[in-house]
């Protein structure tokens, strides 16, 4: 069965209460057409995992502005005033996670790990509610894996099996989310025939990808 789908077929996957991981760093590497579909779908009570809440009019931040996100799990919200406002009014739950910890939590989620120990956040409010473990005299926080129902990724090129390559700064969280979600939808700038991508250059194996749409 072909993984190449229309945007409408991709949008049909969206449902209320889903946890959705969306690639991108300040909207660079974010699949904007898939975010368009998510906004237009009107599904609500979403938990959104991403690096940041980007901008009010670009990237993941649009789901904050639309009120569809009930919770965001991100490392940074400073470029989207609406995130801070809704956090203060209590309409949006914001879990701030150090960026490296966020990346590793997704990696752990996708790699079958039960968690990991990191020195990041020790002695800060990040350690609240977490188990602290001392090994060889160094304090670490036990951080737990993150998983999503759906991942929305942006690729530079996808072949028809879903093998992906990214370009420059767009890679960021995309390959990690490909592993950490039950269902993976890719928005590719270009879709090429099987065999056109050098296997050595493939970053995300197509086996992880469920649907491919053209950007």
């Amino acid at each position, binding site marked *: 069965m072909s993984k190449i789908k229309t945007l409408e077929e991709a949008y049909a996957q969206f449902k209320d209460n889903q946890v959705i991981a969306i690639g991108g760093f300040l909207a660079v590497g974010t699949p904007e057409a898939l975010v368009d579909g998510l906004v237009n779908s009107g599904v609500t009570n979403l938990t959104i995992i991403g690096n940041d809440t980007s901008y009010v009019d670009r990237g993941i931040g649009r789901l904050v502005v639309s009120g569809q996100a009930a919770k965001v799990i991100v*490392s940074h919200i400073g470029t989207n005033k609406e995130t801070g406002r809704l*956090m203060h009014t209590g309409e949006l739950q914001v879990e*701030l996670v150090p960026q490296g910890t966020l*990346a590793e939590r997704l990696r752990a989620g996708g790699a079958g790990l039960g968690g990991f120990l990191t020195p990041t956040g020790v002695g*800060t409010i990040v350690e609240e509610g977490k188990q602290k473990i001392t090994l060889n005299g160094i304090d670490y926080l036990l951080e737990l894996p993150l998983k999503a129902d759906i991942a929305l990724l942006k690729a530079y090129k996808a072949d028809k099996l879903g093998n992906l390559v990214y370009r*420059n*700064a767009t890679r960021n*969280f995309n390959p990690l989310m490909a592993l950490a979600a039950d269902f993976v939808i890719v928005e590719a700038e270009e879709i090429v025939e099987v065999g056109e991508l050098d296997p050595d250059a493939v970053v995300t194996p197509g086996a992880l990808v469920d649907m491919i749409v053209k950007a």
Partner: protein
Amino acid sequence: MADTRERIVKRVAKFFKDGDLVNLGIGMPTMVANFIPPEINVMLQSENGFIGIGPSPEPGMEDKDTVNAGGAFVTILPGGACFDSAMSFALIRGGHVDATVLGALEVDEKGNLANWIVPGKMVPGMGGAMDLVVGAKQVIIAMEHNNKNGAPKILKNCTLPLTALGVVKWIVTELGVMEMTCDGIVLRELAPGVTVEEIQSKTEATLIIPDVIGTMED
């Protein structure tokens, strides 16, 4: 007197050695890149996923896929390398980054750093700062010596929520260069025209004054 910020970033650039991998924070630290001595090769990491930050592109030559961690258009130099966020922070947390330069809201005598949140006022999130200061081999703070109200930022104890415990190695301000040691903060250099009395009067922490204090060149 040279522009305050320019004096600070020029001095910071002198910390680097040939072959260093360096991560520059957003804002004033980014300006350090303009003053790295041409005789040394320093690779700059961008935590959104590459090594080899080059100059800003010419107008009209911006590439939508090539931005720094502040979202500004940049270029990637020949010899650069792109990677995902787990690799980026493995480089950072794993001690592969030789130095990071960041601003600060507060620093204290124990090397504690606060630079990510002012509760109730400014909650941008920590981004990559907590990982950077824990993992980089050298943490260099580049900041104005006092805040906008003239209050000290180098304190006996930080009052704001911390970014990390005991991580700061160097503090560079327009008044001087200070080194964090196990005994406290040692004054290593003074900017031209600045006295020991002046810098101490603008600092809440007690500075350790060695016999020889260098001059912070413009």
